[in-house]
C-alpha cells in the first residue's frame, strides 16, 4: 500500500489492532464471568453513602458488545483496515469513485451526450433543460456573476446585457468559458499626471454621450495618443483584446468621474478563470444555451 513507507508498518498496525482487540475481549469477558467474590469492594464506603454495588452486568449488554466485536472482525476481514491487508472485497476508495462514475455514466451518459451535441435552439425550447442549466450557472458562475447573471459589485460583468467585452458570438463565449480571459488596462498616472487623468476622464465620458469636443481638447489629444490602439478611434473597443467599448454606456467598474479617473490612473485587471477542467461538454453546452437565450 502506497501510504506505508515499508512493509514493516503494515504488520505493525495489524498486530497492534488484533492483539489489543483480543485483549479487550479477554478483559471484558473475564470480568463479566468472574465469580462474584467478596473482594470487589462492595463493603467499601468512600463518602457517607458513596459505595459500589455488586450487581452483575446485564446479559443484554454482553450480547451488545459481543455483536459489535463480531461485526468489527467481519468488517476488518472484508475491508482494508489491518495495515496493508486490502480485505476480501478488495474495496478501495478509488475503486468506489470509479464505480460511482461508471454508474453515473450508465444512468446519464446518453442524455448528456445528446445535450452536448444538440443545437442551442432545441435546448432553449426545453424548460427542464433550461432550469437545469440555470442551476449549473448558479453553482459554477453565480459566485461572481450573481445567480441572475446580472454581474456584481462593479467587478464582475453583467452577462444579460448587450455588451460582451470578449465578443458575444457563441464561439467567443465558449472560448471565454473554456479558456478564461485576462484583460489588462494599464495605469496612466505616471504618464498623464493628475490633471491629464482628469482631462482624459472627462473626454472619455463625453465620448460616450456623443458630445462635441473641440480638437484642441487636451483630453482628446491624450486619447488619440494613448488609447486608440486598444479602444479604437471612435471608442468602439476591440473584442480581440478585450478592450471594452467606451461608447455603449456600459461601465464595468463604475460610471462616475472618480471611477473612470481611477481606471485611467491605476489601470484594471479583469480576470475570468478557465473552466475547461471544471465543466464537461454537456455543462458548457447548457451554459451557452442559457446565456444566449432570448428573454
Amino acid at each position: 500500500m502506497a501510504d506505508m513507507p515499508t512493509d514493516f508498518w503494515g504488520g505493525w498496525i495489524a498486530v497492534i489492532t488484533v492483539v489489543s482487540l483480543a485483549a479487550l475481549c479477554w478483559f471484558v469477558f473475564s470480568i463479566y464471568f468472574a465469580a462474584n467474590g467478596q473482594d470487589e469492594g462492595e463493603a467499601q464506603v468512600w463518602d457517607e453513602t458513596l459505595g459500589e454495588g455488586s450487581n452483575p452486568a446485564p446479559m443484554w449488554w454482553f450480547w451488545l458488545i459481543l455483536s459489535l466485536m463480531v461485526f468489527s472482525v467481519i468488517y476488518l476481514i472484508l475491508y482494508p483496515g489491518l495495515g496493508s491487508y486490502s480485505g476480501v472485497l478488495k474495496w478501495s476508495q478509488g475503486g468506489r469513485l470509479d464505480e460511482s462514475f461508471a454508474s453515473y455514466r450508465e444512468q446519464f451518459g446518453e442524455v448528456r451526450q445528446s445535450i452536448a451535441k444538440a443545437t442551442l435552439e432545441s435546448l432553449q425550447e426545453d424548460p427542464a433543460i433550461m432550469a437545469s442549466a440555470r442551476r449549473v450557472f448558479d453553482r459554477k458562475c453565480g459566485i461572481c456573476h450573481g445567480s441572475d447573471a446580472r454581474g456584481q459589485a462593479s467587478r464582475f460583468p453583467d452577462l444579460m446585457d448587450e455588451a460582451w467585452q470578449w465578443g458575444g458570438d457563441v464561439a467567443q463565449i465558449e472560448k471565454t468559458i473554456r479558456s478564461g480571459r485576462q484583460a489588462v488596462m494599464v495605469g496612466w498616472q505616471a504618464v498623464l499626471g493628475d490633471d491629464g487623468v482628469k482631462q482624459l476622464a472627462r473626454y472619455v465620458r463625453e465620448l460616450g454621450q456623443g458630445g462635441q469636443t473641440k480638437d484642441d481638447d487636451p483630453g482628446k489629444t491624450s486619447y488619440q495618443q494613448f488609447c486608440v490602439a486598444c479602444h479604437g478611434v471612435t471608442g468602439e473597443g476591440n473584442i480581440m483584446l478585450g478592450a471594452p467599448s467606451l461608447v455603449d454606456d456600459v461601465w464595468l467598474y463604475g460610471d462616475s468621474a472618480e471611477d473612470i479617473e481611477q481606471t485611467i490612473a491605476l489601470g484594471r485587471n479583469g480576470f475570468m478563470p478557465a473552466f475547461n477542467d471544471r465543466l464537461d461538454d454537456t455543462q458548457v453546452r447548457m451554459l451557452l444555451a442559457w446565456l444566449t437565450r432570448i428573454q
Partner: protein
Amino acid sequence: MSAKNENPKSEFYHDRVVTALVMLAIVWAVLGMAAGVYVAAELVWPTLDFGEPWLSFGRLRTVHTNVVIFGFGVSALMGTAFYSVQRTCHVPLFLPRLAWFVCIAWQIILLLGGLSLLAGITSGKEYAELEWPFDIAIALVWVCFGIIFFGTIAQRKIKPIYVSNWFYGGLIIVITMIHVVNSLAMPATLFKSYSLFAGAQDAILQWWYGHNAVGFLLTGGFLGMMYYFLPKQAERPIWSYRLSIIAFWAFTYSYIWAGPHHLHYSAIPEWVQSLAVVMSLILLAPSWATMINGIMTVSGAWQKLRTDPALKFIVLSLAFYGLATFEGPMMAIKSVNVVSHFTDWTIGHVHSGALGWNALITFGTFYFLVPRLVGRELYSVRLANIHFWLALAGTMLYVLAMWGAGVSQGLLWLSLDEFGELRYSFRDIMASMPPYYLLRLVAGLIFLSGAILMTFNLFKTISGARTIQVRPPAVRGAGASV
C-alpha cells in the same frame, strides 16, 4: 458532612477554591452561551456583525466554543474534581496553594485567550485555536492540575481508588498528551506559529486531538462528575462495580482510535478510516454500560426525581448521553457519514452532547454542590424546576432544528435531476435554511434564559455566605488501612 463523624486531628478540606471555580464556571457558561446565541442570530441575519471584524461569525464562533468548553466545562471539572477527590480519599487537597494558582491562571488564560480570538489571532486548529504562548501556559497549568490531583490520591486514607477518580485521572493524562502533541508548532512571532505537521498528517492529528478532547474532556471528565455526584445525590451506591470497570477500560481503549471518522472519504489512508469505523462502533458498548450504570443507581430512589431538581438534571443528562453516544457511532458509519458530513446534523449531534449531557449534568451537580459548599438551602427550588424545563425544551428544540436542517442539507446535496446535474445549488439549499436557524436561535435563547435563572438562583444562595469548613471523617470500611 456530619460533624460527629469528623476526624478532629485532620486539616479541613480545601473547599474555597471549589466555590471559586464553580462560580467562575457559571459566569463563563452565561458568557459562552450568549456568544453562541449571537452567532446563531448571525446565521439568520448575517448583517448582525455590523461590519466589525471582532463581531464576525468566524471569530465569535471560536469564542463561543472556547468559552463553553474551556471556561464553563473545564472550570466545572476542576472544581468538582477538587471537591470529590478530597472526599473519596479522605484527605485535604495536596498543595492547596497550587490549586489556587491553577484556578486563577486558568481564568487569566481564558480571559486573554478569548480576547486574542476576538482580535483574530488563531492557529486555525479547531478547538485548539489559541496561539503558542497560550498553548504553553495551558500545558503548565494542566500539569499543575495533575500534580494536585494525583498528589491527593497518593495521600489517600482509603486504599481502593473510587471510580470517579479514574475518569478524572484519565481526563488529566490524556488531555496533556493530545494537547501537547497537537499544539507542537514553530513560533514565527509572538502570536503566529506554524504547525509541525502538514497535510493529511495534520488532519489526522487534529482529529485525534479534537475527538479525544470530546472523549476525555467532555465525556470522560464529566463521567467522573457523574460517578461521584449521581450516587451522592441519590444516596445509593453505584449500581455495578463490574460494569464501571469494564466500561472505563473499553471506553479508554476504543476512544483513542476513533478520531479519523471525522475524515471519511478524504485523502487519509483507507485503513485509518476503517479502524475508526470499527472502534467508533465498539464505543457504543461502554457508553451505554455507563448510562445503564448511572440510571440503575437511581432505581430504588425514583421518588427523589419528583422533588429533587438536581437529580432530575443528572438523570436527564444520562438520557441525552445515551442518545448522543448512539448517534455518534451511527454517524461514523461511512454510508451514514455520506449524508451527515458537512451538514448541520453534526452541529445537532455536538449540541445534543454539549447541552443535553455536559451542561445538564453540570447544572444538576451545581444545584447539589453550591448549597453544600455554603451550608445553606438552595435559594429557590421552584426556579431550579423552571430551569429544568427551560433546559429540556431548549435542548430538544435545538436538536430537532439541526436534525431537520442537517438531514435535508445532506439529502438535497445528493439529489440529481434527470440530466445528471445537482438538483439544488448550494444557494438554493441555504435559502431554505432560515426557518431551521430561527428555531435554533429560539432554542438557544430558551437554554440561555435557563442558565441565567440558575446564575441568579445560585448567587442568591451563596451571597453573603462563606464556604463552610469540613474535616475528613474518621475512616471506616474495608480498605481503610493505608
